[in-house]
Every structure is written in structure tokens, then in C-alpha cells.
């Protein structure tokens, strides 16, 4: 399949990483006002999950949505404009970073409430089941399991047997825990997250978020099962939190990620070096394809240059895009009459 070409996958992951780096830079320059979250370190999850999806499928996401939207095909320039609150954004500045949605790409609503999108995804699954086409996929963090909405969404999905894939990106795991083989959430008492949906008879499994090929195999299988009418599925993607996402506001611990770090080089910060060596899905994938000689380093460099130029253009577009007119604050409260 063309979309599973290593060059495509590297480009898709780099597009997310370079986008998020620029997002952090723009925040540091005070180009946008609100709090934000980045997807660095989880790129392989969104990229491999979205590879399995069709135009008729629906995706729901959270405040950490940039990676999901980009993997689904959203335009970096319109996303960056939205993050900056500009009129060039997908919602003309009404959503900001936390709630980016693109209905035309099957992302009808994004919720920044913990667990908020899970019942929506069950309902979207119900819509898919009724029309006999498509599935719904929802990405969420491990903290969603601490909300009642998680259980209600899961119970309804199982009772109604809707085609919904629940993807829990457990990024609460610090590297030292991962090393010891511990994969609990930061605060949930359950020993294994998948025990929770399994207690409701929802089939569940776990996969390593640092291993693109394992993710790819997992999503190909689960999406086929869900699409085939097998009912909902839950998967815990075990990611290790990126060093730059530990502080209250995301930061770049050793500047932009360097391609060289995937080929023997090391960043100054020791904790970042450990993360890249053990947990970075991008670096681990690059090492693997280099070893397999399926993509030359010079080609990776060229892809990175192309992606950087694309993101630089997105930043320019966003900075140059005007703010919406004040009167637009009053628009879109109500949908117009039925067409």
C-alpha cells in the first residue's frame, strides 16, 4: 500500500513533530494566548491509526489533537492559524488549539473535557451502524479512565455493539517506569488499563507506542474487526512521555529534534537522550528502516527539509492571517435553518 511506504510514514511523523516544535516556539514568542499541548512522542499512533481509516469514518480527539488532525490530512497552515486565533483557521479563531475540528475530514467535534469525546464517539458509532457504513475512532489519554464518561461510553458501545475503536494513549509513563516494565497510569488504581474495559466485556489489548510496526499491525487488525461488525474495541497505546511535555508549559529541552539523534548522535540533555534511545517512535522507526536499508538517510534528510519548509509556510500563513472581526463573536451561536 502506498500509504504504508516508509517515506510516507516518516514524512507524516515529521510533519507532526516539526509542527509542534513551531507551536512551542510561537508560544514562547507570545504569538498566541492560551495553554496548549503537543503530540511529540506519540506520532506513530496517529499516523498508523489514520492509515486504516476511510473518508466515511469519524475521528474524535482531545486538547492534544494536533497530531490526530494532521495525520487525518488537515492543512498545517489552517491549523496553525486556528491556534493563533486567526481568521484563516478552521473555525476562524473560535476553537483555538484545544478544540480543532474539521468536519470535511470526518472530525466533527473535538472536546477538551477529559473523557468528553468518548460518549460522542459511541454516538457516532451508532450513526455509522444505522447508515451501514464507516466506523468511529476516539483518541484519549489515560486520565479519561478516571471519568464517569468513560464507563458510560464503554457500556453503551458494548450494549449497542457499535463500530467504535477506543484508542487510549497512555502517555503518563515516565521513562524510568517504562524501564521497569510498569505501565500503569499516573493515578488510576487499576493495575492494567485494559482490565477496566475487559470487565465490561469490551475486547481490549495493549501495544507499544514506540513501535510503529507493532502499532500498524494492531490497528490494521482492530479496525478490520470493528469494521466487520465485531463491536467496539479498546487499545492502550503505551507511550513514554516526551521530556518536553513534563513541564506545565511544553518546552523544547534541547532545541528542535535533530535527525542525527536517530543515527548515533545525542542531545545535550541526558533524560532526552534516554527517551530518544528507548521510546521515540520516530527515531526508533528511522533506526529500523536504516538497518533494513529501506530508506536512505539522504532521502530522510530531503523529506525533513521539505516538511520544515511546509511548516515554515504554515507559520507564515498563520502570522499573516488577520484576526477575525469583533462582530464574528456573535456568529455561529445558532445553526441556520435546515437546507
Amino acid at each position, binding site marked *: 500500500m502506498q500509504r504504508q511506504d516508509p517515506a510516507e510514514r516518516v514524512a507524516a511523523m515529521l510533519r507532526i513533530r516539526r509542527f509542534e516544535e513551531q507551536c512551542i516556539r510561537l508560544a514562547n514568542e507570545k504569538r498566541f494566548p492560551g495553554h496548549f499541548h503537543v503530540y511529540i512522542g506519540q506520532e506513530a499512533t496517529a499516523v498508523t491509526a489514520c492509515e486504516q481509516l476511510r473518508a466515511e469514518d469519524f475521528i474524535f480527539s482531545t486538547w492534544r489533537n494536533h497530531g490526530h488532525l494532521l495525520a487525518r490530512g488537515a492543512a498545517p497552515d489552517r491549523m496553525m492559524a486556528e491556534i493563533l486565533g486567526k481568521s484563516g483557521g478552521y473555525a*476562524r479563531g473560535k476553537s483555538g488549539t484545544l478544540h480543532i475540528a474539521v468536519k470535511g475530514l470526518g472530525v466533527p467535534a473535538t472536546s477538551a473535557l477529559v473523557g468528553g469525546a468518548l460518549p460522542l464517539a459511541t*454516538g*457516532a458509532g*451508532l450513526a455509522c451502524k444505522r447508515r451501514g457504513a464507516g466506523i468511529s475512532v476516539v483518541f484519549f489519554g489515560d486520565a479519561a479512565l478516571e471519568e464517569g*464518561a468513560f464507563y458510560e461510553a464503554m457500556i453503551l458501545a458494548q450494549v449497542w455493539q457499535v463500530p467504535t475503536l477506543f484508542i487510549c494513549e497512555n502517555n503518563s509513563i515516565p521513562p524510568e517506569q517504562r524501564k521497569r516494565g510498569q505501565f500503569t497510569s499516573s493515578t488510576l488504581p487499576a493495575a492494567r488499563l485494559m482490565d477496566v474495559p475487559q470487565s465490561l466485556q469490551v475486547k481490549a489489548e495493549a501495544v507499544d507506542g514506540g513501535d510503529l510496526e507493532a502499532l500498524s499491525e494492531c490497528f490494521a487488525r482492530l479496525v478490520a474487526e470493528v469494521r466487520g461488525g465485531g463491536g467496539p474495541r479498546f487499545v492502550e497505546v503505551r507511550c513514554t512521555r516526551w521530556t518536553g511535555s513534563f513541564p506545565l508549559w511544553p518546552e523544547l529541552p534541547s532545541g528542535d529534534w535533530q535527525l542525527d539523534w536517530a543515527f548515533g548522535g545525542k542531545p545535550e540533555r541526558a533524560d532526552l537522550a534516554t527517551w530518544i534511545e528507548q521510546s521515540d517512535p520516530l527515531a526508533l522507526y528511522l533506526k529500523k528502516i536504516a538497518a533494513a536499508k529501506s530508506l536512505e538517510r539522504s532521502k530522510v534528510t530531503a523529506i525533513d527539509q521539505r516538511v520544515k519548509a511546509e511548516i515554515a509556510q504554515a507559520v507564515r500563513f498563520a502570522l499573516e492571517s488577520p484576526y477575525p472581526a469583533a462582530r464574528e463573536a456573535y456568529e455561529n*451561536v445558532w445553526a441556520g435553518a435546515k437546507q
Partner: protein
Amino acid sequence: MKITFAQGVAMALSEALASDPNVLMIGSGFMGLSPSARDLLNPVLRDYPERIFVTPISELGLAGAAIGAAACGQRPVVDLGTGSFILEAFAQVANEAANIHYMTGGQTSVPATFYSLAGIRGAGAAQHSGRMQAMLGQVPGLQVLAPGAADDAYGLLKWALLESQNPSVFLSHSLLFDETSEIVAGAAMLPVGKARIRREGTDLSIIASSIMVARALAAADTLEREHGVSAEVVDLRTIVPLDRETIVKSVAKTGRVVIADECPLSFGVAAEVAATLAERALSHLKAPVLRLAVPDVPIPYSPPLEAELIVTAEKIAAGALRVLGR
């Protein structure tokens, strides 16, 4: 043909299911604890089993599923049971449904209907007597429908299910189930956001919604019969959108007003109507506005305690006489 309020609800559900394959029912209670009203839904349950989804007790999940389905092309109506239970679903109703159209810059619409048996129904005590219309009215993007007549229940629910592009809370009321009115088969659907003058009058206006309309009409009868007072009764029909024009116009004509409301007094629907009159009709007022609403206490169980708090037709008539200086 003459129908009851409960028949109006059942007819609206049945006709909406018949005319649009995207309409679906999440839950099938709708008629609360009344066995005879529940029987009205039997034909719907028989005719559309594949469009009716059985539900665990899960208000938040059900509301969220309705929102998600609505965002993906369906037109669901979800039975949220007793009025107080909408609080269990509030995170989804207020923070998801109401915000999605705005947050997406108009990309996504959420034509979901949340059906709620609101009101002080008798012996419901503090946790089963919810009247949340004022709280719901504080959520921009949410339509709040509170009919006080059988034909309006039919018309508003059918409109919400078939025509509305926005999320709606439909406030039903079990004490209205036996109220009757005439409907014309095939009549055009209501203009939503338009109040209705249920009784014309010249001496004062009584502004009401939902169950308070029936009591306001009874009070107006008493006032005419026993005191020769001509009271106009304005039925708001929808709390959001609120028809401020009709309210102001009626009070401009009569110069005196009693606002009867089943919400707690403070920050309630009556307060919003009073504020509208203060801003737009002060020069027409010959006497201060009177709000007759439920005192700011939880609803107690014991019948005499509950009765103490309810805004009755007698209290409305007595209030009207006070406003008239009698």
C-alpha cells in the same frame, strides 16, 4: 381533533419517526410513571423497534451518544427521564452539545433533542422535582422548549425532531399530560421562539410557561368571574429563544404584570422576564412587577410542605389583585 398533551408527545414522536429515517429514539420512557400515558407509546414501540435503542441508566452517556450521533447526521431524541436527571447529563448537554456549532466555526450542527419530564410533579421531593429551564437558559446555543398546551407540545416536539438544526431541551410536564387542545391535522409547524397569547385581556398580563400556563388560565377565569378583572395570559412556549417582543407588547397594553414561574425565584425565568420589562417597558408600568415563583428552597416530600411552595392558581389570582391595588 382534540388531543391531550401526552397524545401530542406520542404523535410527534410517531410522525417524526415516520417522516425522517434519521430520527431515532434513545430510551423509550418519555411518559414517566403514568401507565395510561405510557400505553400511548405502544404503537411507536411496535412500529419502530430498529429505531429505538434500549438504554442502561446512563444519562451522561445517553446525552453524549445523542450528540455524537447528531453530529454525524442522525436526529436523535433522548429520554432523560425526570427533570432533575438532566443534571447527570449536564456536562454533555451544556459543555458539548451547546458549544459544538460555535467551537467549530459553524462546521458541525447538533440537532439532538433532550426530552425531560420537568417540574414539581407531586411527592418527587428534592431530587425528582427539577425545573432546570433557568439554568439551561444560561447556556448559549441551547434551545429550551417549555410548552404549556397539547397542540404546542405536539408542534414543538415535532419541529425539534424534524426541523431544528440546534440542540433542544424539550421540557415536558407530567401534570400537563391530561390538558387538551384542538389541533388541525397537517397544520404548519410552529414558528419557534414566538410566544402565544392564550387569553386576551386589558387589566393585567400574566406571563407563564409550561405548567404555569394552565394555572394562569385558571386564575384568569377566577379573576374575571369573581372580580371583573380582565387578565391577559402570555404563554412563552419557548424559554430560549425568548419572545421579548410579545412580552413587552402585552405589558405595554395592560400596564400591570404578574410573572408566574415554577423555577426557584432567584435568577429564574421570571427574573429574566422582569429584567426585560425593566429595560424596555418601565414607562408602561403602572405598578411594580410581581414575580410569583417557587421560594428558594429544595422541594420537600411531605404534601403540606410541598403545597406551601407551589405557585397555584389561587396564589396567581391573589397576586394579580395585589398588583391591581385591590
